[in-house]
C-alpha cells in the first residue's frame, strides 16, 4: 500500500522555541558554518515569526515553522529539475532531493514558492573532531548542491530495516517519526499518513481550522497548518490578503 506522509502544525501551540530547528539540523548533519547568513544559511526547518502588523496591546504574534511542503500536484521543483535529482516517491509521497544527482543549477529554488530549498554555498565543515558526532544515517552534502527536508529519510530507512529484520512487511508507524515532530515540546506538529482517513493527522488536516500556505497556487502541499485565530489563517493567502506591513521580522542583508 502507498502512504502519503504529511504534517499538521498547530500554530496556536507553537511557542517558537526552535527545538524543531535544532533537532532537524542535528539529525541531518547540517554543518554549523560561521560564514552563513540569514540569506545563505541551511535551515531545512525554519521557524519564522509573524505578526498581525498592529502595535501595542492589539499586537499579536505567531510562529510558523517552514519546511518543504512536499507538494502533491505537479510539484514545482520536480517538474523543473533537468536531471531527475528531485522526485515524488510513489510509495510515501515524499518529495525526495538527491544531492548526489544535483548539478546545482538552482532552478528548483526559483520554482519553490515556499523558499524551502537551500543551496550549499560552502564546503561543509565541522570544528576539529566534531565529525565523530555526525548522524551515520545521513550522508553529508557537498558544496554546490541543493538540499531540503527529506522528511528524515534516515529514520524511514531504520524503520524499514527493523520491519524486514522482524519479518514484517509494513513499518511500525511508531518507528518513523521525523526529528522535528519528536522534538516539539508542545506536540504542535502532528505527523502521519494523510491517505489513511483514520490517521489523527489526516483528520486534523480536514478540520475547519486547518489551512495550507498558498494553497491557491494548486500544488497540493502535504504540510498543513491550523490555528483558531483568523489573522493567522489569513497568512495562507499571499500578501494581497492583507496589508503589506504584515511581515516576518527577518532583518535581511
Amino acid at each position, binding site marked *: 500500500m502507498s502512504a502519503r506522509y504529511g504534517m499538521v502544525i498547530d500554530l*496556536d501551540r507553537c511557542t517558537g522555541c526552535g527545538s524543531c530547528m535544532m533537532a532537524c539540523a542535528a539529525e541531518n548533519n547540517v554543518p*554549523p558554518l560561521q560564514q552563513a547568513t540569514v540569506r545563505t544559511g541551511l535551515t531545512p526547518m525554519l521557524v519564522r515569526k509573524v505578526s498581525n502588523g498592529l502595535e501595542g496591546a492589539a499586537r499579536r504574534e505567531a510562529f510558523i515553522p517552514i519546511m518543504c511542503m512536499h507538494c502533491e500536484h505537479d510539484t514545482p521543483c520536480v517538474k523543473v529539475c533537468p536531471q531527475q535529482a528531485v522526485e515524488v516517491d510513489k510509495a510515501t509521497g515524499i518529495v525526495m532531493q538527491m544531492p548526489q544527482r544535483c548539478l546545482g543549477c538552482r532552478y528548483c529554488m526559483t520554482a519553490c514558492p515556499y523558499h524551502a530549498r537551500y543551496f550549499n554555498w560552502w564546503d561543509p565543515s565541522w570544528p576539529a573532531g566534531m565529525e565523530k558526532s555526525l548522524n551515520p544515517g545521513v550522508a553529508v552534502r557537498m558544496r554546490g548542491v541543493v538540499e531540503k527536508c527529506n522528511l528524515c529519510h534516515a529514520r524511514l530507512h531504520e524503520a524499514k530495516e527493523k520491519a524486514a529484520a522482524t519479518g514484517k512487511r509494513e513499518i511500525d508507524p511508531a518507528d518513523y517519526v521525523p526529528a522535528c515532530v519528536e522534538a516539539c515540546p508542545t506536540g504542535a506538529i502532528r505527523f502521519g499518513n494523510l491517505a489513511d482517513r483514520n490517521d489523527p493527522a489526516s483528520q486534523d488536516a480536514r478540520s475547519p481550522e486547518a489551512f495550507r500556505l498558498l494553497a491557491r497556487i494548486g500544488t497540493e502541499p502535504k504540510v498543513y497548518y491550523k490555528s483558531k485565530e483568523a489573522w493567522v489563517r489569513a497568512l495562507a493567502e499571499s500578501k494581497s490578503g492583507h496589508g503589506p506591513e504584515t511581515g516576518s521580522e527577518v532583518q535581511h542583508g
Partner: protein
Amino acid sequence: MKVTRRDLLVWSAGAAAGLVVTPVPWKLLDDSSIWSQNWPWIPQPTRGPVEVKQSACTLCPNGCGMRLKMAAGWPVGVAGGSSHPISRGALCPLGFGAHQLNWHPERLRTVRRRATTSSWSEAKAAFAKACSEGPVVIIDGYPGRAASSVLESFNQKRNGSYRVVLGRETRALAPYEAWSGVPASALGYDLENAQTIVSFGAPLLDGWGPPGRFTRLWAERVAGAGPQLRLIQADGSLSRTATRAWRWVPVQAGCETALAAGVARVLLEERLVLARGPMPPLTLVDAASQTGLTTDAIRDLARTIVAHPPAVAIANDDNPAIAALNVVLGAAGASGGIVRRSKPATSYVGADAAIPSARAVLIDSSVPWDFARQTDAEVFRFAAWDGGSSKADWLLPAPGFLEELTDVPTAPTSAIETYAVAPSLVKAPAEVQSAAQFLSSIDPTLTTAEKIIHARCEDLFRGRIGTLIGRDRTSVAKLDSVQKFEEQLWKGAVWVGERSRPDGLRCELQVWPTAATSARPESWSATWPAPVLPPLASKLYKESSLREPPERRNA
C-alpha cells in the same frame, strides 16, 4: 624520414579518433563525477554499531531525561527521554545540540594559570597551599549532587564556606523560606493542579524550570484535555509566553510589584479570597498609575484570577510582593500552589551574599560563566568551555557533556522528589578533571562522588517508597536488591518520590513586604549554564530571525 608538422597533425587526428572508442574519455567522465560526489575533504560519519542509551542531561539543574543515539561509542543524536516524569520527552532547544559540545572550539583542554599554560600538579600545589594559609570559599551552581556534597564536606573540615548560585526559579521561592522556615530548595510549584496561573514576567513557555514540564502541561490544557488552564501573562513586552498566554496584561516593565499589590488589595477589599493576608500599602489608584493600567483593568484581573481556583502567581525573581500575593491567594502551601516536597532538605546560602575575605575561591564548573564576585582571593575556576575574558587566576578544564558520572537531584520548581543517574557515556579527554575529583585528590579521606551516589541509592532502596520509572514503572518496594535498583538507574530509569503534602508549608506574613527591583525575564539561551552554545544553535540563531543570539556565547 622527416617528420613534418603536418604528420603530427595527422597522427594526433588518428589518436583522437582512436581515443574516442576506448574507455578513457567515458570512464574519466564517470569517475570525475563520482569524485565530485565523495570529495575527500568532506567529513563522513563514522561507521559502526548504533545503540540507544537512556540518560539525563546534566548541563543545567533541570536534569531533563535524554535519549542518546551512540555510534561507535560516540553520541550522534539527542532526543528527549519520553519516560521521564518531569521533562516528559522534551528538551530545551540547546539540548538537541549538546552532543556536539565536547568538540566545541572553545573546549578547555589544558590547565591555565592566567594567560599561561600550567599543569594539574601546579594547580593542586597552589590550592593546597591556599587551604593551609586561610579560609576557602567553594561555590557550586548545581547543589544537591553527590559532587556537591564532596565540595561541601571538603569545606566543613576547613571551616571554609560553601556557597550556591541558585537558579531564577529557586530564588523566586526565597521569600517563602523567610516566612516559613522551609528551605526554598524543598519547595515547588504544584502546577499540575492549578487552574489559573498568573505569571509576572516569568518566561513560563520560554525557559522556566524543566522545559518539558510546563510546556507539555500547557499544550495538553490548550488542546482541551483536562480542565482548561488559564495562563495570564503580565509582561512589559509581547514575550513568547505572552504571545501564547490565554491573556496578556501589558504592564510597564518592572512594575510587577505594583500590579501584585494592586491585585492583592482588590482581592482583600472585595473579599474575593478566604485567606487573610496583609493589606498592601499601595492604593489601587497608585497601582494603576504605576502599572499604566486602569483601576478597572486591575479589578477585572483580580476577579479573573480568582474566577477559576486554584490560582497561583509566579514571579520571575525573588520579588516578595508576588510571594505575598500568593499568601493572600492562599496559594502558599495549597494544592495547585506552592508546596513542600516530601524529602527534608538543607537551606543554602546564596553566593550573591558578599564573599567573606577568603584566601582562595573554588568555582565549580556548574556555576554560570558570567558569575563574578569582587574578591582579592585566589580564584580557581573549573569549566569545560572557555567563555572568554575570565578573571580567574586558575582556569581548570572540567569534564564536558556526559563525560563523568553524575547524579541528578530533583529539578527546581518540581512538586515531587526525583533522583536519576547520568553515567559517563562519552570518553573524556585525558586532561580534564572535575572539582570533586580535584578535591578528593588533595584530601584522599573524602568519600568520592561515586561512593556517595551508591550510598544514596541504598538509602532510597531502604526507604522502600517511591517508584522507578524507566521503560516500565516498578515500585521500589517490589525490588529485591539494591543492585537491581542501581542497575535500573544506570540504564536511565528515574526514581520518583511520593506526592507532596500541600499542608507542608505555612507562611507567617503580618506586613506587606517591601519589594526588590524585578529582573528582566530570561530565556533558554540566557539560562544556559555552559559558557558557549552548541555550534548548531549559534548557527541557527544567526540564520533565522527566531531570536537575538546572546552576546559572547557564540560558538
